């Protein structure tokens, strides 16, 4: 049964990266995706440990596949987000949106227009 504990920020990023990866989301691709989209360095260990934890919580599932010559014939661990994982991400985003609601003058709008405080 999926956990009911709320997701941390990095966990949200990992599930989103898995969703972006579609059917070919695995450790390296997930890490690359997060780094590319957030512009910050991400530890490989943090990614693997978070993937394990999310699988334990029931937000992700994994299966083996995709062995290639570049990998020395080693299989990939391919991840898929479960409905509970998708719902958890949706919930986290809603929480963020509700918290940001009314703070547009300070934080700016989602399309990048700066708010009052940053001027």
């Amino acid at each position, binding site marked *: 049964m999926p956990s009911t504990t709320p997701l941390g920020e990095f966990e949200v990023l990992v599930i989103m990266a898995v969703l972006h990866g579609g059917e070919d989301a*695995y*450790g*390296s691709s997930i890490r690359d995706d997060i780094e590319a989209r957030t512009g910050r360095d991400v*530890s*490989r*260990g*943090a990614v*693997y*440990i978070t993937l*394990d934890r999310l699988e334990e919580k029931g937000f992700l599932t994994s299966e*083996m596949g995709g*062995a*290639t010559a*570049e*990998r*020395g014939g*080693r*299989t*990939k*661990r391919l991840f898929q987000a479960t409905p509970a994982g998708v719902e958890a991400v949706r919930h986290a985003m809603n929480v963020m949106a509700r918290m940001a609601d009314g703070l547009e003058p300070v934080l700016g709008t989602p399309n990048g227009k700066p708010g009052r405080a940053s001027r």
Partner: protein
Amino acid sequence: MQPVVWPFVQAHIRRYLPYQHQTCVLGDLLEDFGKQVQQRGRPQAELWLLRESFALSAAYRAHDTRERVHAHLTRATWRTRAMFRLDEITLAVRRLIKQPGASIASILALGCGLAAAATTWAIISATLLSPLPVRSPDTLQVVGLHTDGRDNRPGETSFAHIYSIYPAIIDAGVFDELTAIGSYPSLVREGDRPERRDIYFVRHNFFDVLGIPLAAGTGFRPEDDQRGAPPVAVLSDHYWRTVLAADPHVIGRTIHVNDLATTVIGIAPPSFRGLSLVEVPDFYMPMQALRAYIDPNMNYFMDGSSSSSPTSWLTIIGRVPSADATSRVVSQLNATPLEMLNGKSVAEIGGGSFVVEPVNATAIPSASRDSIRRFTRLLAATVGLLLLIGSLTVGMLLLIRTEQRRDEFAMCLALGASRGRLVSGVVWEGAILAVAGIAASVPLTIWLFAGAAAFELPGGISIDALGLSAGVGTLAASAVAALVSSVLIGLVAGVAGVSANIGDVLRARAGATPRLTRRRLRMSLVGTQVAVTLVLLAGTGLFARSLMSAVGLNPAVDPAHLIQSGINLRAYGYTPQQSDDFWAALDQRLSHNPAISMVTFEQANGGMSGGGKLVIDGEARTVPSYVPNIFVDDRYFPTVNLPIRRGRNFGSEDHANSPRAIIVSESMGRWIANGGDPIGHTVARAAAPDEVARVVGVVPDVVTSVRVLEPLAVYYSLHQPTRIQMITSLSRRITIRPTSTSTLAIDEAMAAIRSIDPQVTPSPFMTAQDRIRLQMGPQQFGVTVLGALGTIALLLTILGTYVLAETMAAVRQREMGIRAALGATRRQLGRLVLGEAVRLVGAGLLVGLGLAWLGSESIRAFLFQVEPMDVTTLTSVCGVILVLALLVSLRPAIRAGRVELSQLLREE
């Protein structure tokens, strides 16, 4: 393009990462290494790979450390909590030990309540819920025949049939399975002497249809249940254990039934004691074997030389497909033409209709079912009251504890302790008391089960024969109930305790009047205890008075010194001539025995049922109730000590050729003469109006059944033989008046019988008083159970009253001092304390009287010549409770009178 550092990376990853992920991670690293080579060149890529593997292992090591720390902290938290709990439990135990008297009283009260609850439940279960251990009892139905009423009299249902009904119902084919059973007592030789044993003669499929697997051996085979088959028997567990000492090699052993060698082929399971709770068989034999044992003049099977069966003796049991199908099966049976009815159905010949009743329901005789239900309800109510007493005692103890600790609670709360923690301490005390009560209930339950076995339930159901056993489920349910209720009581007491606040405590210390709320709560607890005690003791008193009334019946007869027994020589193959010789020899030996002052013989066979007709002075009159015909000799009335009220005793003038004379009981005399003098009136049976007998004497009524207090009886002379007497001359009752002790006279009488014929075994010798007492089984049970419970309740109530009076006197010490300083005398101060106790107990008694009035109808059915609201009993019980309460309040009252304000102030 394998990296140079690859062996090192592999070793590193395999050392620190979980085994199942190593391959995938190595694949990821190798894939990314390829990209790094393209972007940065090989040397940089090799360094990158080393850094990645180091970072990766470091992350996993850190993760492992966090996990271990987390697990360690969790364990530590649990350990700490457990230690806290242990401390709380230890403290609770210490607090309880500090008040040993009250703690022991609570534990005993709870233990008694639980033991009584377990016993009561076992009795209810064994009598009303599941009396028979048969398979699917709902589908097992006993077949009855309901006859239509005639002459404005209601119809009757009989579950005993003549044999030929059984094959007729088999042929009807409406039941899935059918079996039959009939009981017949026989003489079984055990050692040197034969004993009369109850035998169930059953169809070979009996145990299979009932779904009862034998404990040992095989069941009956069809060939065992055929005419001329070698006799075999299945023993009851009770017979096997008590008579054959649980012989492990009993299968194949030979026993002698009516002098016929019979082979034991099995043992019934201990849980199965026959189909009736009243009649417990000793063993079972195939039905056709009955042919070998019965009197040749009796044709139980209606297929021999005799044209009719002597009695209805057979119980027929059928299994229906399902409980829902029962009514359909009965309709089919009533509509099916039966061969024995010349191809007509029962309904067609107007003989009534077949009915069925579940086998469990018929286990109790229909006449006793209501009594059993009422009695078990009464028992359950009593046990409920005892459990209430137990709970009240626990409540009292905890309330006293919390009241004493109010200062401590208030201080703790003021210093920041949580209310939950304080309440949990009190709850633990309740739980510990409950656990101790449960432990105490185990030996008490065993003792109660053994003790209850000596009593009978209404309808003559022996509790011993029920084979009660306290199932684990019953004990567990009682234990859980006690635990939950004690914890709840503890919770209430705890909440009451922590409701104290620091302001209250400081005010109390300053000498202000304490709030009365909690004292009122305790007063109401003691009041309830008084009320419950009154109900229990009043019940005991009423049952005891009923017993005394019953035992005190026939005072002129001196029933404690009148011994009676019966002998039926028919079972020993005696002819009428041989039996005459036997009676003469026995008469001669008993008359000359110094231990026996008087002896007489009677034949109490035959009579006229209520509703039948007797011809009085030539006019046929309907008899209101059963009139037995008792044939007695001329020594009968002096031996029984019945004076001749009017007329004369039988004498030499009453011989075979003289006009027939009878002596009647006073009640019969009043009925014959419509209240006048019956001497000289004539009586004859409607069936033989010429056999006229004239009343020559009147004797007092002798009550032999507590249900018939005005017995109608007609005494005939043994020296004037009648047709009825000729038939029954093989059976007689012996009445003995001992010279000194009853025991010696019984031993001498037994020796005399054995010296004439060692084979003959009479029915148990018993005094007339014991015979009456036997009919009062439920009342004796009631006296014992209610008496024991009432005594416990009384002790607890008195203890509660004492504790309350003591604490109230202590709380009001300052007030008493001020009163004394203002001029109140010692007597006045003492009266204040006593008055409070009297008001409290008085209120409880009033509530108790109300409860007794509410329950009076449920106990009425078990009382004999005593009213449920008997003034003497209720007044006595109220007086005892009040006097004891006053006695225990004397000490606090005297102490209150001696208080001095100056001393109090110095102490403060």
